[in-house]
């Protein structure tokens, strides 16, 4: 399928909390894979100008779901749209999580904050596949309110363990502490890690996985203007030189990333 611009109708648009929205778009994307994203245009014309990259949260028969955080002018405009309205999207874009790595193994999904969004699509994909063991979802957030998709991971068939910074739900501490314990148990023998969240969290995930000798894949976030590999705005330093988060990622093998050269945002 060629990647093009699509005008997709909003089928449903729900407010999850004061800053998180769930948008369902009539955009059948049978070839979309977990970890891919779409570039969404907020408003029409030149202001705001650029599209927003949003990961695919779930895929249904009739379309895709986007779970996104309202962080600025663009996402605020999107949040104001009602069902029936159309949005311009380009996608699905980028490379998803390598599913073959999960064959015969226990997938460990590690999501921090909004990073849980694309992992739901992955969980549903993994639990539908044969020869893949029950995935474990480790979810972390600042507070209980920030823990997203707990129910969705359970419905998909995952074992869910949570952590919050303030201890308001699950373990008090970072989600990486949950992973550390898991990797210290016998579970590490056959684990493969898929993770999405803030960069410092992904960095810890990489260090834990590396110490334990477990394969880890991370989905990176970056500022990007085009999403199709042209602007070089989203470059990330890797062991094989600069790569584009939009086109060569957003999912990378964790050991490929030069974590020291961090983007501070």
């Amino acid at each position, binding site marked *: 399928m060629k990647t093009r*611009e699509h005008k997709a109708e909003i089928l449903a648009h729900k407010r999850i909390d004061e800053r998180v929205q769930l948008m369902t778009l009539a955009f059948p994307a049978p070839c979309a894979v977990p970890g891919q994203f779409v570039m969404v245009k907020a408003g029409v014309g030149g202001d705001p100008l*650029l599209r927003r990259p949003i990961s695919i949260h779930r895929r249904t028969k009739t379309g895709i779901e986007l779970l996104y955080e309202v962080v600025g002018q663009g996402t605020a405009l999107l949040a104001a749209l009602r069902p029936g309205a159309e949005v311009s999207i380009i996608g699905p874009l980028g490379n998803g999580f390598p599913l073959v790595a999960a064959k015969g193994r226990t997938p460990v999904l590690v999501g921090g904050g909004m990073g849980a969004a694309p992992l739901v699509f992955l969980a549903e994909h993994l639990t539908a596949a044969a020869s893949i063991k029950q995935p474990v979802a480790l979810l972390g957030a600042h507070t209980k309110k920030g823990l997203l998709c707990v129910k969705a991971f359970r419905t998909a068939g995952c074992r869910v363990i949570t952590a919050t910074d303030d201890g308001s739900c699950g373990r008090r501490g970072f989600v990486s502490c949950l992973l550390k314990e898991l990797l210290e148990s016998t579970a590490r023998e056959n684990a493969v890690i898929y993770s999405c969240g803030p960069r410092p969290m992904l960095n810890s995930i990489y260090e834990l996985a590396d110490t334990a000798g477990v394969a880890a894949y991370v989905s990176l976030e*970056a500022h990007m203007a085009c999403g199709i590999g*042209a*602007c070089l*705005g989203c470059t990330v330093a890797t062991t094989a030189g600069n790569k584009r988060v939009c086109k060569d990622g957003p999912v990378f093998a964790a050991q490929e990333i030069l974590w020291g050269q961090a983007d501070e*945002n």
Partner: protein
Amino acid sequence: MKTDLSVRIGSLHLKNPVMVASGTFGYAEEFKDFLDLRQLGAVVTKTVTLKPRSGNPSPRTCETPSGMLNSIGLENPGLEVFLKTKLPFAAKLGIPLIVSIASESDPQEFVELACRLERVKSVSALELNISCPNVKHAGAATALISQDPAATKAVVRSVRKVSTKTIITKLSPNVTDIVPIAQAAQAGGSDAIALINTLTGMCIDVRRRRSRIAMPVGGLSGPAVRPVAVRMVWEVYRKIKIPIIGMGGIIDTFSALEFLIAGAAAISVGTANFVDPAVSGRIIAGLKEYALENKIASVRSLTGSIVKPCVQPKK
């Protein structure tokens, strides 16, 4: 009635005046799913330097009112890899291929690049990027070559001596008077002027009191800069004889027409490619429709066709 969209830039025959701006279209292959690339007037590739450049730190872009700020820092794989892996796709399109080149520290690199590209048949023209705001030249009188008429003329002349290809000189709007710079490029032997590169700008995250991009200053592009770009095309058009390729915030047919009417012979679509990868195709169709509706036999007659203002600017 038929309408003629073709234009000439130096020795290039463009079937229409719509090109794509360097740095906003990758190496063309990135856009193949979105539009029929062969319909474009010409393609300008991302600036290439002699040696590979990894570019500036991240974040490199941020949204600004009706535009964006970027500080990519001319990331590119260097000439060798460019010739081997990037150029072949664009070379097969059968449309004029313009290669944007830049020096990193020594303007002599322009000559070396031009010599190497002279032997590459598929390259129709060189665009001299002497105006990138995100690369610093040590020891020069001005931050950018294109901020100094003498340096501009010297670089163009040195390339002219070794190249038979059409030379386009891309200028910076970050000057007090654009006219002497354009005249210097013309005097150096440039076949055309590309106006404008990005305007330098800043954007601050107030909460963190830090620049929103990793570098303090970046290049502003998008519709926000269009009035500045149109004004510069208008100013330069009346003072030089070589054609102008106008660019800066073109997002549709009407914004493209603004540049033609101000004095551009051709236009380049830039930042809009990021938002709408198929937009240049629609602008070509839109120009044709406009010409037919207004019974314009040749798009060339639009160039500089602005109605004289009631109040003439003082000399």
